């Protein structure tokens, strides 16, 4: 039997084991209030033991989410362990899979007792919830900054504080960024792996075809409107497009609101949070979209884009401009086969309002609660190797870049620092000679983004807020007579109810 097969068998056993333990845990918690049901609980415990014994698993019993555990693997307790990692999205190219496999091989060479299995994974709000409830998430997966605090409060991710603090570069983390993965006491539950600022993404080829200069992208919202009209008229595609489903409508409306100087939530001195989505900037943003859509007729005919479909439409030349994360190029290469010559990126125009800023977000790597202590050690080792080494060590940066290049994957995609600026700049120097993205088309953004004030996403019930704003954006884009004030007032009431609702 090969090592790989052993790894698979262990993986399956571990999954059954985790399911049994997870189920047992839930049943036990729910049934302890009636003594008579303890008999049932004991029977279920016996069943779980039989299942585990039948699977032949050698895994240790997983501890609670609050366990701090020992530091990450240090070479002294090297029992074989298997972890699943959610890195590639469904539909990723074979080249992307090959690049990941190469990095897995390198990792396993460094940690021969750890078997890493890749599991397709893509965070979307609805699918994540279902996977979380079903216990089918990988052992290591990623979430947006917006979900870090909530998952910590609900004990749905593992406390990896001691393990992460044992890493040599922990002091260099950007404190603001790291805070997204910390609890109120500063304990680390999640490691920031990448940060982005919102950008104005534009298709250079469509600009050229419409007679516009792709080297002079819009610098104001008036420019955006003017260029969108020209592109729509001459290229017969959407001059400007807007996401509107799967919580992305609210996310993008928040981005526009920030750019115009507004905020979606207010926190007073006592910590009380008030929804403010019916603020003047949000109304102005919606009126701007209303004008693009109904007056200018510059937004095409599709108004139900989500994150994946807008990337796809942009990569296939159906969209002149849209607002999206600065890190989209990787996905567009891996999943959408974009022509690099098409890709253009610039900073979002900011209003003259002193509060105007760029919405900043990012990704956190976390460990599934349904893991053993050994798997948690291995998970942090994987995070250190796969996500952090390329940012903190020259060898790691070069190895990562070469693995990507050898499989035609992009190196040098615009990003924001998760560590201090000096560490970030150094990491860029290490890979400078290996950058294979159209850097000249990105250099303006890479420089200017650091001049723009970054504003974090709303802190409380963020995804609920985004979800409640989706229909507002949809109404403006599909109903010429949409009453913006009424829509925003209704949404504000709903969001405030969610904020005030007791936690589960």
């Amino acid at each position, binding site marked *: 039997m090969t090592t790989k097969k052993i790894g698979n068998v262990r993986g399956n056993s571990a999954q059954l084991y985790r399911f049994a333990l997870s189920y047992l845990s*839930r049943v036990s*918690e*729910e049934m302890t209030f009636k003594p008579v049901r303890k008999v049932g609980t004991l029977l279920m415990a016996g069943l779980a033991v039989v299942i585990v014994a039948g699977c032949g698993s050698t895994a240790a019993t997983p501890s609670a989410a609050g366990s701090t555990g020992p530091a990450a693997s240090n070479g002294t307790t090297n029992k074989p362990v298997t972890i699943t990692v959610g890195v590639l999205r469904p539909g990723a190219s074979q080249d992307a899979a090959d690049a990941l496999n190469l990095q897995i091989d390198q990792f396993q060479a460094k940690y021969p007792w750890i078997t890493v299995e890749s599991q397709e994974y893509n*965070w979307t*709000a*609805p*699918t*994540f*919830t*279902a996977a*979380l*409830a079903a216990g089918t998430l990988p052992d290591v997966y990623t*979430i947006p900054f917006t*979900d870090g605090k*909530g*998952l910590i409060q*609900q*004990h*749905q991710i593992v406390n990896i504080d001691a393990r992460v603090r044992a890493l040599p570069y922990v002091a260099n983390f950007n404190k603001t960024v790291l805070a997204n993965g910390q609890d109120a006491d500063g304990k680390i539950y999640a490691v920031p792996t990448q940060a982005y600022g919102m950008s104005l993404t534009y298709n250079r080829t469509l600009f050229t075809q419409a007679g516009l200069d792709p080297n002079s992208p819009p610098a104001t919202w008036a420019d955006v409107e003017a260029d969108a009209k020209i592109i729509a008229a001459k290229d017969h595609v959407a001059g400007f497009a807007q996401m*509107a*489903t*799967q*919580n992305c409508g609210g996310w993008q409306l928040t981005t526009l609101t920030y750019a115009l100087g507004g905020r979606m939530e207010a926190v007073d001195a006592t910590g009380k949070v008030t929804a403010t989505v019916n603020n003047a900037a949000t109304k102005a943003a919606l009126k701007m979209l209303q004008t693009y859509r109904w007056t200018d007729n510059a937004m*095409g*005919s*599709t*108004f*139900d884009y989500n994150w994946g479909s807008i990337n796809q439409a942009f990569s296939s030349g159906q969209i002149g401009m849209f607002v999206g994360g600065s890190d989209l190029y990787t996905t567009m290469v891996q999943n959408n086969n974009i022509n690099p010559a098409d890709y253009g990126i610039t900073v979002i125009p900011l209003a003259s309002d002193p509060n105007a800023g760029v919405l900043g977000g990012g990704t956190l790597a976390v460990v599934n*609660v349904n893991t053993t202590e050994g798997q948690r050690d291995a998970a942090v080792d994987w995070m250190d190797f796969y996500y952090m080494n390329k940012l903190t060590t020259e060898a790691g940066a070069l190895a990562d870049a070469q693995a990507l290049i050898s499989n035609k994957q992009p190196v040098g995609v615009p990003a924001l620092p998760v560590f201090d600026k000096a560490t970030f700049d150094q990491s860029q120097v290490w890979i400078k000679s290996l950058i294979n993205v159209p850097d000249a088309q990105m250099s303006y953004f890479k420089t200017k983004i650091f001049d723009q004030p970054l504003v974090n996403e709303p802190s409380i*019930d963020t*995804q*609920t807020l985004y*979800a409640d704003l*989706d*229909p*507002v954006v*949809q*109404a403006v*884009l*599909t*109903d010429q007579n*949409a009453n913006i004030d009424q829509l925003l007032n*209704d949404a504000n009431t*709903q969001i405030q109810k969610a904020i005030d609702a*007791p936690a*589960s």
Partner: protein
Amino acid sequence: MDSPARLAVAPSGTRKRRGPLGWVSRDGLSSLLFLLPMLVIFGFFAWFPIVRDVVMSFQRTNLVDTPKFVGLDNFAAVLNDPLFGKSIGNTIYFSVLALVFGYPLPLILAVVISEARRFKGVLSALAYVPVVIPPVVSVLLWTVFYNASPTGLFNTVLSWVGIGAQPWLQNKDTVMPSIVIESTWANAGATMIIYIAALLSVPRELYDAASVDGASILQKIWHVTLPQLRGILLITMILQLIATAQVFTEPYLFTGGGPANSTMTVLFLIYHYAFQNSLGGDYGMAAALSIMLALFLAAFTAIYMWLTRSWSTNS
């Protein structure tokens, strides 16, 4: 097995109680063993989830932390949610549209195919093909048809007759009829097969007698076919009403409940409660609305069956 005669001679109150051994000797054990797989599977996959759903409707839970019992709070929250009324209105709208356009179509198809003199099998197969296409594939296919750009399939066809591009799924006024059209296309074949089978059982003599009386085709359908199919028609109507009250796949795949909640149906709202929030969802509210829907459909079905009890026979 005890014969009626033997049972009749046994004096009341003097019959021997049947012990376990007697039960076993009368094949009770083997019957139970044969039933056991079905009971286990049905219990685990049907009744256990139903009981869990009832319990969960009184709880606040994220399926990870210990649930808290909250009494009727979930039901109150559902009733106070503005989307609740919206989803009921949308579901009724879908059901009515499906009833008006989707209910007669299978019967018409069945009658036409039954009357066809040639290619009856081919016509039946063609009408049934949409049923064998997986629902997700059907919806994706129709999403292409409904592309709102001037180059979309339906819009291209409309342009041939001088009609401008329609927004189809991108407009709150056209989205529900668009969904109903696809749903009718996808599901009519299954009901049509039932009607074709039922039509075979209609005595030929009735049509012959009607012909002798000089009845036209429409008169034959009205006076012979429909009365003969009355029982089947009533059953298919209640089945369709139950199915349309639970419509989910089409709004989920076509529009995600949009635009602006205009295709937010009751079942989609249940899904919305459970899975919209990436931090755990409100499973209690989802369970509460599920219970409310189930109770409503049970009551509706009972009333329907009671009201139509005198029409449901062919006598």
